């Protein structure tokens, strides 16, 4: 996934299937080898049990059992078009549900860094539509161990801390966010001012 991504909602794959609540959509991406693969964008049916407006967004191909495989490694011919289409689906959902937040898991460090770099490179464009946050998970140090073998970390006591992602706010790959959250920017709603 090394190709730089340029988000442009004017250059999208055709969204072929979409559910009435906009929580499911699918389109076909062309891979580097010329094959087409159907990709699904799925927003969870239920919000987080304790965070009533936070929904999870996943994307990827369906496996043989019809389950969305969000860890599939595909080599797309046009990453810009793929991610533009995924984020456009998110935008359409948030336009209909302006008080909702959509979260995307950075399933591993490399993928999280790729998402982050894509958000940074396209900040000016995306900032017209979304507020974007990166969430880091901090673990409490319960005590300093007497020896280096003692584990001082209390992994039952974790604070998720959100940071607003901004244009000039570089984060190194080693300190990458664990989770990304989007919501609709005020004034970004359809029919609003052209920013």
């Amino acid at each position, binding site marked *: 996934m090394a190709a730089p991504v340029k988000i442009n909602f*004017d250059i999208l794959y055709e*969204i072929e299937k979409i*559910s*009435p609540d906009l929580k499911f959509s699918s389109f076909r991406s062309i891979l580097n080898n010329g094959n087409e693969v159907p990709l699904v964008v799925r927003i969870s049916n239920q919000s*987080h049990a304790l965070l009533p407006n936070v929904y999870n967004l996943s994307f990827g191909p369906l496996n043989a059992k019809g389950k969305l495989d969000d860890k599939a490694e595909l080599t797309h011919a046009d990453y810009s078009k793929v991610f533009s289409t995924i984020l456009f689906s998110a935008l359409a959902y948030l336009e209909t549900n302006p008080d909702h937040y959509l979260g995307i898991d950075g399933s591993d460090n490399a993928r999280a860094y790729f998402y982050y770099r894509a958000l940074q490179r396209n900040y000016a464009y995306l900032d*017209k539509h979304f507020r974007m946050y990166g969430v880091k998970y901090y673990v409490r140090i319960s005590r300093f161990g007497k020896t280096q073998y003692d584990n001082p970390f209390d992994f039952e006591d974790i604070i998720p801390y959100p940071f607003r992602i901004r244009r000039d706010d570089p984060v190194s790959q080693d300190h990458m966010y664990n989770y990304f959250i989007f919501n609709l920017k005020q004034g970004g709603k*359809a029919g609003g001012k052209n920013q």
Partner: protein
Amino acid sequence: MKKTIARKVAALTKKAKEQGKKPEVNLATSSSLHQVIKTKEQAALFMKLLKEA
């Protein structure tokens, strides 16, 4: 928002309403955030921080 994008959003929303049926896709709703936030207090603190960020 650019008018062309607003029109595309409106067209997709219209298509969604017309398509009617919800496709069956198996998806676990769990995320890392689900695993980390386990109490109402943690959730309230997180939403406060999110709104202030």
